[in-house]
């Protein structure tokens, strides 16, 4: 017989226990994610750190975005017009765009945001050097007038990686670009809202669905299209230890790891509840950077010798290991992109040690050791320097490899001092492919002497070609110019590309809808 008393008691007891355990009925659909790093800085314009860029894509939106074919598509912009002389761009914003505080997104907000971004970003600086002025026509329409035709206006505004031209309210964008915005100013118009009161660095960062966000009608593609949010909240859990993050995924405590280390992929793949998903089909590119200020790399011929001594496979095998997750590619602007070309590199990166030695002899190399900085605390970089040392020594170089943590390397690479006084000759790093898609975007091609990135290459011809590329609006001619830059880099080496590699995310099987894009994004994702 049905015992009412007992049933009520059971329900009450269960409710009490549930309350004690913190379980509430109809729990929000929450995606628990372990990102590659903890979020400490909130301003994606102030820093170029990728974790802050990823945070930016949740909170803020962009005027334009690149789809999965790297074509530029309008995002916040509804329509745009380019004048016949290519000197005036008119942008009209979509209807219903609203900041998280309820105020409408206006032209003035966008103009202020572009200015702040351009003050920090190299593509932005290049763009603003050609901009005569920006003017709000009305609340939803603004114009950008150029001094001369510039082929990268839309590509700049759709720049996918750091610094991304995120649109911010004018009052926030008025912040000095060299000052970080305040946590209370993390107000965007993007698909998620940053929960400032729940942001606990070292513990978690919480984003909730923006109920007022109006996604575009097109399907999501790359970073473009409709950003339809299908989760109630996304929580970035800070788990400092990779093994712990993997254990938490196996135990179902987290739903996704953005970038599990390659040596743990096999462990993850063995579990039937876990799947791997390569969200960034273009991957990342390993790079060897020269410092041209000091001997022996102040000599172009000596740098050319490195191009012959290296081969990509040794680097990729030593770091990634499994060929499933890497690709040899001699195209500096990434294989599989519109600017893919192998020109100039056909006979290089084949470990032709005889040619390397011959070039060193021709250059009069006197045995000055190359001070090679090795970062030892990032698994994806640690083994690069020993391979470089080995190949260079086989190619006739003397190498002084110095081990240090990545942060020390980052500090030291900014120093122009000679290697024996705390400076350096070379180091290895990795770029997300989205950062190196063309010669203007990719910072290591900047050969503007003191204005160039660390390594400070100085070559007027490269600069002319980059400038011509920036001005060119015809894609075919742009490709020819990119090819010319690539060839010129074989004559005046600024850096060496050492292959592409991929870092899949690890997901529980109940997570679906992840979008392939150069940046991990959380719209379209579902949790069953």
């Amino acid at each position, binding site marked *: 017989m049905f015992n009412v008393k007992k049933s009520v008691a059971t329900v009450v007891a269960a409710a009490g226990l549930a309350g004690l355990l913190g379980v509430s009925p109809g729990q929000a659909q929450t995606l628990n994610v372990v990102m590659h790093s903890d979020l*400490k800085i909130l301003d994606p314009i102030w820093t170029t*750190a990728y974790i802050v860029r990823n945070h930016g894509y949740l909170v803020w939106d962009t005027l334009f975005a690149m789809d999965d074919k790297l074509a530029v598509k309008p995002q916040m912009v509804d329509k745009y017009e380019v004048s016949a002389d290519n000197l005036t761009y008119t942008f009209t914003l979509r209807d219903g765009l609203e900041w998280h505080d309820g105020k409408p997104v206006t032209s003035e907000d966008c103009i202020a945001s572009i200015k702040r971004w351009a003050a920090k970003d190299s593509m932005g600086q290049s763009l603003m050097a050609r901009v005569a002025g920006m003017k709000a026509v009305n609340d939803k329409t603004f114009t950008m007038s150029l001094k001369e035709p510039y082929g990268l206006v839309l590509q700049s505004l759709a720049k996918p990686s750091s610094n991304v031209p995120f649109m911010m309210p004018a009052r926030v964008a008025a912040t000095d670009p060299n000052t970080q915005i305040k946590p209370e100013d993390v107000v965007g118009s993007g698909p998620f809202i940053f929960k400032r009161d729940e942001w606990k660095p070292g513990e978690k960062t919480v984003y909730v669905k923006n109920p007022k966000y109006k996604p575009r009608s097109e399907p999501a593609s790359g970073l473009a299209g409709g950003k339809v949010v299908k989760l109630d909240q996304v929580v970035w859990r800070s788990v400092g230890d990779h093994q712990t993050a993997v*254990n938490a995924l*196996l135990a179902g405590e987290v739903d996704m790891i953005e970038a599990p280390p390659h040596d743990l992929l096999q462990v993850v793949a063995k579990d039937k509840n876990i799947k791997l998903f390569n969200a960034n089909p273009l991957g990342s590119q390993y790079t060897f950077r020269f410092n041209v200020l000091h001997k022996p790399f102040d000599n172009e011929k000596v740098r050319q010798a490195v191009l012959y001594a290296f081969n990509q496979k040794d680097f990729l095998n030593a770091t990634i290991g499994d060929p499933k997750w890497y690709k040899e590619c001699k195209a500096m602007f990434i294989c599989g992109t519109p600017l893919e070309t192998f020109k100039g590199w056909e006979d290089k990166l084949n470990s032709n040690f005889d040619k390397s030695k011959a070039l060193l002899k021709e250059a009069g190399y006197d045995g000055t050791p190359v001070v090679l900085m090795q970062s030892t605390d990032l698994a994806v970089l640690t083994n690069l320097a020993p391979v470089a040392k080995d190949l260079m020594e086989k190619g006739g170089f003397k190498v002084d490899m110095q081990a240090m943590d990545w942060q020390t390397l980052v500090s030291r690479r900014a120093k122009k001092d000679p290697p024996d006084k705390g400076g350096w000759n070379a180091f290895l790093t990795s770029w997300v492919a989205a950062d190196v898609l063309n010669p203007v975007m990719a910072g290591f091609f900047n050969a503007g002497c003191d204005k160039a990135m660390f390594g400070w290459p100085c070559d007027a011809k490269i600069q002319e070609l980059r400038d011509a590329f920036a001005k060119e609006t015809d894609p075919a001619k742009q490709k020819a110019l990119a090819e010319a830059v690539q060839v010129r880099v074989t004559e005046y080496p600024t850096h060496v590309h050492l292959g592409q590699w991929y870092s899949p995310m690890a997901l529980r099987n109940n997570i679906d809808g992840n979008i392939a894009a150069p940046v991990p994004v959380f719209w379209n994702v579902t949790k069953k």
Partner: protein
Amino acid sequence: MLDFIARRLVAIIPVLTVVAIFVFLMLRLTPGDPAAIIAGDNATSDQIDEIRRALGLDEPIWTQFLIWIGKVLQGNFGESFFFKKTVAELIAQRVEPTLALAVCTLIIAVITAVPLGVLAAYRHGSLLDRCVMGFSVLGFSVPVFVIGYILIYIFAIELGWLPVQGYIRIGVNFWGFLERMVLPSVTLAVIYVALIARITRASVLEVLNEDYIRTARAKGLTNRVVLMRHALRNAAVPILTVIGIGIALLISGAVVTESVYGLPGLGRLTVEAVLSRDFPTIQAVILLFSVVYVLINLVIDISYTLFDPRIRY
């Protein structure tokens, strides 16, 4: 006694001064530039210089030190280079997990190690004694993170009894808090148990050979009374000393344990701050650890008088 406490408290000042100077100089002399780290990989030298200026890192070291120490004397530990939060706020957010871990570890360690040590001494040379000593050697030898991963594998992944990582604040959900404290506390307690059990055994063993123990036994007291009231109480001073010294072990162990179990405590804050060269945070945390260490040892010194009336200050 009050005079002793006052003297010990005053003695903290030179200790902290030396710690402050040492930490400040060490951080400035070791390689690594917070401005370059903040700026990110794509930053230019100009951008890094701008950030360095904004953080005041372009000033001479002694100017930086005087500015910092001046603020510290006013109770202001400055603002973290990264978090756009005051260091005091950051520490306040992170104290609870570390404190909880330390207290749980101490409780587990003391209630396990002291009886084990006493029993090992009482059954000197027996299998139990050898097991305790063997465990003690093992506890010292196996690194904390190895113990952590083994426990996680068994109890969280294979058996699914306990969570792998994370922390729930005690005020939010008590059972959730307890669940998440078990594995980290046991992990960290292993080395502590090894240390205390070994010292307890040695101290009790020494006391058991004293004349007054023989007298107590001759009076017909039970073994339990002899052990607990006479032997253990007289052996307590070295045990308390070890517990005090072990606080340093606890602090260093917490750094590793918090990383392995994803606890958002002061240990992880220290690691993160060191890796990102967040000078104000590192300086404040090290000063805090120093104060805690000194104060706990003061409390231990005072507690000697409770166990041994011959000790007076």
